[in-house]
């Protein structure tokens, strides 16, 4: 068994409530930080830990914290991003449902480090049951003296509020989230200024993912250096992976960064292999936005080395032959799945979720959806593939926020690695309506490129 830090007590009966959570060692980090450390000490430990943002971008959390502006007399805010909506990702829901106090404890420690007196947890509106769970956890923590005025007699005061979203993927982007928290449409802001300087209500703000905040608890308990000993190189600590699609045992797994992808998919400790005795065709390793890889390239890098569940190894080979860790939304496709249909589905998602501010994204996602609809429904032409490539190229990098890139990358990767599946659809319009292309790529070590 690998080491766990976040989900260690997940199966303890009653862990959702304060009492049991406390009995398992909960809220020790709050006592340690508030009574024996300065806010800067806490930031220093998080820096030492090497913790990288668990929401998708992978930016070092300690560094993000150190950018926070601290002008005299201006409020500072910590906002937790619990808008989990990257297709394939459901780890934050799991954590908030089963161990809500892990997030609240991390919120207190992190708010203390940043000097925030009021913090918000922005939860996607559809997670109404989780919102109720968190509100209850906050009330329990407050009742026990870990929140509110003069926490544990240290003079530090903090209030945490839960804010529901309204159903919009874009609000997972931090500036869109802040707009939404201010009661507006979720249109991402132009940066700079970054939230660290002008965030919520124009005040210095840090926005962190649920898992990143929860990870500060073991970091403070055991020290940043201990945390950094887990994992490989710049991928330190543990990571929650949401395993879905056609695996035998879908669910949330906490892994030590560095587990081989092959072990993660086939070992009984994790996914237990592909469901129904099927073969693996492809994987989207980090949520719908990251490049899809055929089975051969997700199991081994282009140079033949085993691919590992780390930020670096998943990205090995760049976008030509690699992908990204992203949010840890691990979606496995079995041999019966159609890459064209799935790409069409994802593109419809991005068209639906584009906020409409930037033309390349607003128009481009719609065009891509229409072209993919044509190809999937046996109405495509050869030139559509090149047109699709052209459209995605013109979205990438040309928008205010990363949603444009997120929409472009899956399309580019699908064409890059599965071009002959697209061509087969076009050349066999009626056959493609009755059966899927199958596994042709599975054993094909050659990587197709079109750029």
């Amino acid at each position, binding site marked *: 068994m690998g080491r766990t830090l976040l989900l260690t007590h997940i199966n303890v009966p009653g862990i959702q409530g304060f009492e049991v959570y406390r009995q398992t060692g909960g809220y020790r980090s709050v006592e340690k930080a508030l009574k024996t450390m300065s806010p800067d000490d806490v930031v220093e430990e998080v820096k030492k830990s090497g913790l990288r943002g668990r929401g998708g971008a992978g930016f070092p959390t300690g560094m993000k914290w150190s950018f926070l502006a601290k002008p005299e007399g201006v409020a500072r805010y910590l906002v937790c991003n619990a808008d989990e909506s990257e297709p394939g990702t459901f780890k934050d829901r799991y954590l908030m449902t089963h161990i809500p106090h892990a997030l609240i404890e991390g919120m207190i420690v992190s708010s203390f480090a940043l000097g925030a007196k009021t913090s918000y947890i922005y939860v996607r509106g559809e*997670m109404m*049951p989780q919102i109720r769970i968190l509100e209850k956890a906050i009330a329990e923590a407050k009742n026990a003296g870990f929140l509110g005025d003069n926490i544990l007699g240290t003079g530090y005061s903090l209030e945490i509020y839960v804010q529901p979203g309204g159903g919009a993927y874009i609000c997972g982007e931090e500036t869109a989230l802040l707009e939404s928290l201010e009661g507006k449409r979720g249109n991402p802001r132009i940066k700079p200024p970054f939230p660290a300087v002008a965030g919520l209500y124009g005040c210095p703000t840090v926005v962190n993912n649920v898992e990143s905040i929860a990870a500060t608890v073991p970091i403070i308990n055991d020290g940043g250096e201990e945390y950094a000993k887990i994992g490989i190189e710049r991928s330190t600590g543990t990571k929650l992976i949401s395993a879905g699609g056609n695996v035998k045992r879908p669910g949330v797994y906490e892994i030590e960064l560095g587990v081989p992808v092959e072990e993660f998919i086939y070992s009984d400790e994790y996914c237990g292999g592909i469901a129904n005795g099927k073969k693996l065709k492809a994987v989207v390793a980090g949520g719908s936005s990251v490049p899809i890889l055929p089975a051969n390239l997700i199991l081994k890098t282009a140079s033949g080395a085993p691919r590992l569940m780390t930020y670096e190894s998943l990205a090995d080979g760049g976008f030509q032959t690699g992908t990204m860790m992203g949010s840890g939304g691990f979606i496995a496709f079995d041999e019966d799945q159609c890459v064209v*249909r799935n790409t069409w589905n994802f593109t419809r998602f991005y068209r639906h979720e584009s906020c409409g501010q930037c033309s390349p994204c607003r128009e481009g996602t719609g065009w891509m959806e229409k072209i993919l609809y044509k190809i999937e429904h046996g109405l495509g032409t050869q030139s559509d593939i090149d047109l699709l490539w052209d459209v995605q190229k013109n979205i990438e990098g040309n928008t205010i926020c990363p949603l444009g890139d997120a929409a472009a990358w899956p399309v580019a990767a699908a064409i890059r690695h599965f071009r002959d599946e697209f061509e087969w659809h076009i050349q066999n319009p009626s056959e493609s309506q009755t059966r899927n292309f199958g596994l042709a790529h599975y054993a094909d070590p050659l990587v197709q490129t079109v750029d």
Partner: protein
Amino acid sequence: MLSVKENSPVEFSPELLTKFGEIVKRYPEGKQKSALLPLLHEVQAVFGWLSPDAMDKVAYFLNIKPIEVYEVATFYTMYFLEKKGKYNLEVCRTGPCCLVGAEKIMHHIEQTLGVREGEVTPDGLFSWRGVECLAACGYGPVLQIGPEYTFYENLTEQSVDSLIETLKNKA
């Protein structure tokens, strides 16, 4: 000054207004607009949808312009600008759920209820629609029913049938 619009055809109960007041307290002085999304959820939970009159009343309560409410209500997918069935079944239709049969489930619901996506059954009990990823990909196919957003996971045609039966008997 936060107050209630007079001469509105929509009535907000004292309990609802108390809730409004508590929510507004979460934000700094002058930032009451932050309460807009939570307030709209509360209103929708009571009325089932957001009528223009109800939105105007929320605007008046928060001391913001009605257009600021419309902007938000039309941007986010969870707000209904028209009446839905008493039970609005929202099925996740994004990639991971489709890998495990979400399209079949949507088709089955359409057949069983006899109404197309977005329409309401003649008895006013049911409506359904496909929604984008609900962050429950390991438990797909899934559907949710507001206003408390109860989740139904690992759906099969049989489990959908019994869910619809249960809801019918409850109504």
